[in-house]
């Protein structure tokens, strides 16, 4: 405080500057009068945010349709707002939802609490949890703002086989993570066909598998 150099004062304005100053602010106004308006007609015209926008979460899948989430709860642990709740369960031979031993059986994010900081995304060890650019998160009641796993799970992409189904033959959970599994295998498709004949994803998966063979 006693340092003289800290005592800084603006130089007094000159004669011309004093005269122009009251009108200078209108420059912006004038420019805007003749430019295109930026108003977003939001409900009628949706704006696509930037790709890294922190929007609604998504639980991703491996290319063969198995879930990436192993229910480790690291996202819940990382969450500074305590918005995430995860319950893990055992994968069984009859119900294999994710590669390896465990999967996230129950996954909830409370969007009334979430602050979209993205720490959960950083914490996720399997890249299961990412954020989409979906920002339309509003609702009429509180309960509805707790998103369940079925709302968060990524939809099946073309050629994916709906779970549960066994892991790709010979593949370990590490192989999945390393990207060595590129699509549903014939054995997996046959398994689903045998256990859930009406599953709509079988046709697409079979087509994909065939294309894979051709390639």
């Amino acid at each position, binding site marked *: 405080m006693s340092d003289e150099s800290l005592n800084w004062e603006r130089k007094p304005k000159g004669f011309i500057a004093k005269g122009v100053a009251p009108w200078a602010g209108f420059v912006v106004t004038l420019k805007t009068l003749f430019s295109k308006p930026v108003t977003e007609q939001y409900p009628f015209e949706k704006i696509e945010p930037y790709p890294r926008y922190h929007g609604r979460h998504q639980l991703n899948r491996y290319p063969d349709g198995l879930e990436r989430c*192993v*229910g*480790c*709860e*690291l996202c*819940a*642990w990382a969450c500074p707002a305590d918005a995430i709740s995860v*319950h*893990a*369960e*055992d*994968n*069984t*031979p*009859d119900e294999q939802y994710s590669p*390896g*031993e*465990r999967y996230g059986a129950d996954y909830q994010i409370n969007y009334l609490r979430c602050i979209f900081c993205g720490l959960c995304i950083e914490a996720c*060890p*399997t890249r299961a949890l990412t954020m989409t650019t979906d920002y339309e998160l509003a609702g009429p009641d509180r309960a509805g703002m707790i998103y369940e796993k079925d709302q968060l799970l990524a939809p099946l992409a073309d050629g994916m086989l709906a779970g549960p189904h066994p892991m790709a033959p010979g593949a*370990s959970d590490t192989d999945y993570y390393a990207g060595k599994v590129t699509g549903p295998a014939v054995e997996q498709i046959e398994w689903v066909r045998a256990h859930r004949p009406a599953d709509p994803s079988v046709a697409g998966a079979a087509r994909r598998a065939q294309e894979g063979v051709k390639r």
Partner: protein
Amino acid sequence: MSPVPALVTLRIDGVEVSVEPGTVIIRAAERAGIAIPRFCDHPLLAPVGACRQCLVDVASPGPDGALRAFPKPQAACTMPVSAGMEVHTAATSEAAASAERSVMELILATHPLDCPICDKAGECPLQNQAMSSGRDISRYTGSKRTYAKPIGLTAGILLDRERCVLCQRCTRFASEIAGDPFIALQGRGGSQQVGRFDPEVLGFAGHGEAAPGAPAAARAGLADPADAVTAELVPIGDTANLAPAAGPATTELPPVPEDSPTPGEAPGTALAADGTPFASYFAGNIVQLCPVGALTSTAYRFRSRPFDLVSTPSVAEHDSSCSAVRVDVRGGRVRRRLAGNDPAVNREWLSDKDRFAFAWQSLPERLTTPLIREGGILRQASWPEAIAAAAKGLAEADGVGVVPGGRLTIEDALAYSVVARTVLGTVDIDFRARPHSAEEARFLGQAVAGTGLGVTFDDLVSATRIVFVGFEPEEEGGIVYLRCREAVKAGATIVAIAPYASPGVRRLGGTLIQVVPGGEAAALDALADDAGAMAGTVILLGERLALSPGAFTSALAAERAGARVAWIPRRVGERGAVDAGCLPGPLRPALAAAIAEHGGAVGSAAADLEVPSATNPDGATDPDGVTNPDGTMGPGRPSGADGPVEPGSCAGRDTTAIFAAAMAGEIGGLLIAGVELGDLPNPAQARAGVERAFTVSLEVLPSAVTELADVVLPVAPPAEKPGTYVTWEGRMRPFPQVLVTTAMSDATVLAALAAKLGVPVDLSLTAAHAVLAEAAGAAETPIPAASPPDDPAPLEVTLPEDSVPSTQDPAAPENTIPPAEGSTPASYVPPSPVAGEALLATWHLALDAGRLGSGEPHLAATAKAPFAVLSRATAFEIDVRDGEPLQVSTAAGAIVVPVRIADIPDRVVWLPTNSPSCQVRATLGASAGIVHIEAAPTDQPEVHT
């Protein structure tokens, strides 16, 4: 007492600390408040120096007094301190820090780092120490070892071998503490691993299919079939480190029968009936001990993270040891239980039943709403409606019997005791939902009720000889077994008075005094004849002694000869029920006075309990009143109550008499809590009694009683109420409410019932504690002798060992227990079975068909398969061979189980009391006596009732 040894002074990181000689450096550092990372070190296990994580720089003075540094860092967990030693941990020595970092790096080089899918993550010493003394970034780029995972060690415990750091805590626990080494290190070098003697790993030849019911099958879909535990496994005998057994007038342990179905069995090892190595009752401890996530429990696997859990210290409800537990709750449900640390009771150990069997408290079928019977059908009702119906029925009933069962907290037991006597006006109350005798009731009244802390766990450990009479510590005592093992290691000898040497007794290196069922008294008398050996002897009496005439009398005679005697019931609430006066007949005066004082606000009820003058009208007229079942003179019966107590019945009906009276219509009402009809000595009679009488059942889970009851009032399981259990020692074990619910304790429900009956009584915890404190205080002063010969016995138990013989009243040598039903130990002759008949010997297995084990299939899968035991001669007599099915039958029904040949008296058959497919009381309707045995038709391997 040996003089206190001089302390050794050393410096650790410059901090001077003085410890007892022989202390290892790591303990001394703890004393100085210096943390040294460790994995293998555990204060209750022998040092092993396996993990090398605790390396420190040590210099100690040589012969010339000059400090000489050890050339390399030393393991702090194995090196004892010496005077003048200078220790530098990683905090002050670069060499130690470097060693610590390097060891951590080596450990992590083979560790999978799969924390996201590992149960231990968040409470993992390896995680924590990797953070505190590891590197930031791994330099290891090679591939890590992988194993098929997980493999099942037991049905309840899974092993992920790649996570193991080979600290050997689990194997040391199994061999040192539990004494049933079902796991060991196998293989060498890089392929060394913990396992169950897996032939695949050990390279045995000729092993094929997996054993039936092999634990790995529980997770067959995940475990590699090659890892399935196979049938012929070779456990290691563990009798080497036990003191040799030596006792007077005893027979040495029989060798294993030569035609044993397990050729690889070493003497002294225990195998389950199916030939697989016995899965320990204490196996769950290794999950808690494991410093990494290599050992996990099937029930808890993937269920939770530490930060999800709310932990509450509590007390386990499965045996009378009342072990300290930590209950972990997530989302309003108990997820797991861990051993608490209570050096006086369970140290840091827990039986598997205490650890895993908690699901019964939250089963989906649990009773949640009151039910009342209307038109023969139970329907849901509101609480006021149900209480009103119960009150109306009980008030109209012509006499009420109260059977509170053996699983209550002492506060709840006291509530039953008070309600029975003041509100219902009856002395027909008996907690013993199992075979019982009048002799037992007298023993409990004299030597147990209100005697406070008697023989303790620490007394067991310091005993020179422990005698089991009618008691199987491993099956019936929970943590008592581990403390007995501790005693054996400290030099005690074990003597079992039993029909045959159970695996638990054999593993304790015990000596068997073989008796036929019912012959315990004579054996005890013979033992007590050697009075010189009785000092330092602790005699443990089990609940099945009630079936052995004269045994309790002999035990008290042995106590007068200098031994110390403890009664160890199987159920958690029995000791508390005794102290709370849940025995037929009047209350003991101290308790009656305390109830009268602290229940004084409740008006007329108090008057019923006032301590009578010496001229107790009932006691004076009734010879039974001379020695009340509580052992002392007390009020003959509540006088003012309107319940009809029949003349001459002031001693009260016991459980059997209550149900017999109910069946005969002499008693019109029953108040029953926590009782399984199948546990009762005569289930058929009890069922008929419940059917006939107006029955109010206070229960947690649906049972045969609730199905037949007229009013069912749901009460809280232990996790949902606060309370106090009493250990067999007499130690109070209060525990808090773990879960927040609206469920009410028995006492709360009874208070509402009493209020509805027009006799409001204060049954709150506060009142109960005041009563019990008052009664305990009064018990310390000598009780006035209304009947002189009966006086000294209650005080004997608390006398110091060395003063017992000299302070006894010489005028009353045989005073303690009047012979029951005219039989004396000398005159008791066991019935002699003819060929094709046998005397039934039976006791409960720790893991059986008991209701509190329900809902936990992984634990149930580790239970022993039921089997019968016969002597070779008897088996020959009825032409049944080892392993073949045996049919044991009475007029009531028949049980078929495989037979094992063992050294048991001829024409005696042993059966587990309540195992699946072998429910002795429910099927045979008998707990002792003569049963028919014959080789079962081979096409009927299952049970027929």
